[in-house]
């Protein structure tokens, strides 16, 4: 369960998050929508521990623990995963090597045995297949020369392998063709169970046709200004965000 309470955060002198309050119970998927520049990515970075963001007020509890005090890698070990809006390139670092290093770092932190190369490759190949990716993805360097859509799929590959308890998808659907969109949705849906919850940031209702959220929130001007059932997304699609900006 994720409980964000009155979260304020700033970058330099600019306050971006101005009191975000949001609860995602275990097993639920919530969507966040909202205008450009509202603070959606900022929220995802603050939750996953990126530097440069100062939390001035409030807290974020994940299964009762204040994750804001943890290092990013410890948040990952606790089960948090952020699918980046703009995935980062790592020249010279093989995708398979990166994935295995990540997985084993997390397993080590959790006191679990590391996976050897053979066991890992089996797991990775299965995930690649499930995501309908080309096998040579594993051999290529992390995100280097990937198309926009391929980068997003690569984020989903990481998610499939790291099996987080809380996934934040920051516009993973942007730039995806319709087949890829279905595959991404399926990737999320297969993880769906009592121990998994997700925060899906999107601009488009069509993703929510495939990943049906338990709730939809609107983030505008650094605050959640409206929350409602899945149907809220349809409504927003028709009417836009006019009139929803925080006072």
């Amino acid at each position, binding site marked *: 369960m994720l409980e964000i309470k009155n979260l304020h955060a700033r970058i330099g002198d600019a306050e971006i998050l101005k009191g975000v309050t949001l609860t995602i119970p275990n097993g639920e998927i919530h969507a966040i929508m909202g205008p450009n520049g509202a603070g959606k990515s900022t929220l995802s970075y603050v939750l996953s*521990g990126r*530097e440069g963001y100062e939390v001035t007020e409030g807290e974020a509890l994940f299964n009762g623990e204040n994750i804001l005090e943890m290092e990013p890698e410890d948040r990952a*070990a606790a089960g948090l995963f952020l699918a980046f809006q703009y995935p980062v390139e790592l*020249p010279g*670092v093989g995708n398979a090597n990166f994935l295995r290093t990540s997985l084993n770092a997390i397993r080590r932190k959790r006191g679990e045995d590391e996976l050897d190369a053979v066991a890992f490759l089996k797991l990775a190949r299965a995930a690649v297949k499930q995501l309908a990716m080309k096998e040579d993805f594993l051999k290529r360097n992390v995100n280097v020369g990937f198309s926009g859509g391929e980068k997003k799929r690569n984020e989903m590959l990481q998610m499939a392998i790291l099996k987080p308890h809380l996934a934040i998808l920051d516009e993973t659907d942007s730039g995806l063709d319709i087949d890829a969109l279905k595959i991404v949705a399926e990737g999320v849906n297969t993880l769906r169970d009592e121990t998994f919850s997700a925060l899906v940031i999107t601009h488009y209702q069509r993703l929510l046709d495939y990943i049906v959220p338990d709730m939809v929130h609107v983030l505008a001007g650094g605050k959640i200004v409206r929350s409602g059932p899945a149907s809220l997304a349809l409504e927003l699609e028709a009417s836009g965000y006019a009139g929803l900006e925080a006072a």
Partner: protein
Amino acid sequence: MSMTTEATINELATQKYKYGFTTDIEMEEFPKGLSADIVRLISAKKGEPEWLLEWRLKAYEAWLKMEEPEWARIHHPPIDYDDLYYYAAPAKAQPKSLDEVDPELLKTYEKLGIPLHERAALAGVAVDAVFDSVSVATTFRDTLAKAGVIFSPISEAVREHPELVQKYLGSVVPVGDNYFTALNSAVFSDGSFVFIPKGVRCPMELSTYFRINARNTGQFERTLIIAEEGASVSYLEGCTAPMRDENQLHAAVVELVALDEAMIKYSTVQNWYPGDADGKGGIYNFVTKRGACRGKNSKISWTQVETGSAITWKYPSCILQGDGSVGEFYSVAVTNHFQQADTGTKMIHIGKNTSSTIISKGISAGRSNNTYRGLVKIMPGASGARNFTQCDSLLIGDQCGAHTVPYIENRNASAKVEHEATTSKIAEDQLFYCRSRGLSEEDAVGLIVNGFCKDVLKELPMEFAVEAQKLLAVSLEGSVG
């Protein structure tokens, strides 16, 4: 960066050099300082023939008239050459077989991860272990002898194969090439000798492990590798030293000779003690390495991973004399804290259709300075010569320096010389991306740096590539923050 990171930095700055221990063993040392008498003493100690003593004395005379080179981007207080020991060796008589090697020494090498007992040794790798001034053990000599390969301490080769040593010693790096080669030629005490006869592919990797142990002692080793027509060999050297507050001098000379169609692959993992986080102590690594591709279609390939030493001054070079000969230089140089590296290569194209490749990856962190200095020289007769040079620098933090100094002298219009250079920083978003996937900050730096160096690391023999990767990560520990 974060508080925990700072704590680890402090911890690691003091702990990270895990080869910094000393071995307590009875040593025989000659008096401090350098004179013609010390040179005679070294030569007599080794039972050398007259010609070699003469050679040494000439080198000593030449050295007296020379000055330390000053053109490199390195700085250090003056070295007092009279305050050094020029010969230090374990006092016990030279062992004849591995079973007679002093157990303290065996323990030392075991601690360094180089077991000298053949049954425990790395499969397929023969080791010559040089401790201060002498070779203390050479493994797998019988296996190699069966293939006709000579792999022995150079002092022994002087006694047993004088004609080979006399023919090639100083033929690639002349005695008076520079200040440190003259010094080395006068006082060198040991090192490895390798001879691969015509048509033989050396059946094992050969390696020499250099260890400085004694205080105030310079290490002056000499390596000579000869590959006859059609022969090939892969050779690797590793180096470590105890942590000491004072600087220690290491001035080695390495000469390689490749005849027609021969191939020599020479890899170095240099991990001399780099000094502490405040720049105190560490090895001055002033080394001259040069290979002569004398025969047609011969090939010499240098791969170096330089992580240690307070100062590194070395330019492994190739003289591409034979038509169609090939020279390669793959280098990773890492500097952290107050380390200084001025390293690169010289590719001298003399023969027709000679080609050379230079890939240099410099990584600087802390307050260190890292310079690539390279010369590509195409002589008038080198028609069809080709060179490709790629120099990449990676900066970690903003107090370090990276410099690229390429010299190109092309005197043949048909030659093609290409040079590419880049400088980059480890980006914050790369670090965060890795950390959000569970990697610690240090592991993230290690991963990114290893990615940056991949083109060089893949040139290392398999057995050592993994070690080198770990070493890179360890050398940079404490560099972000």
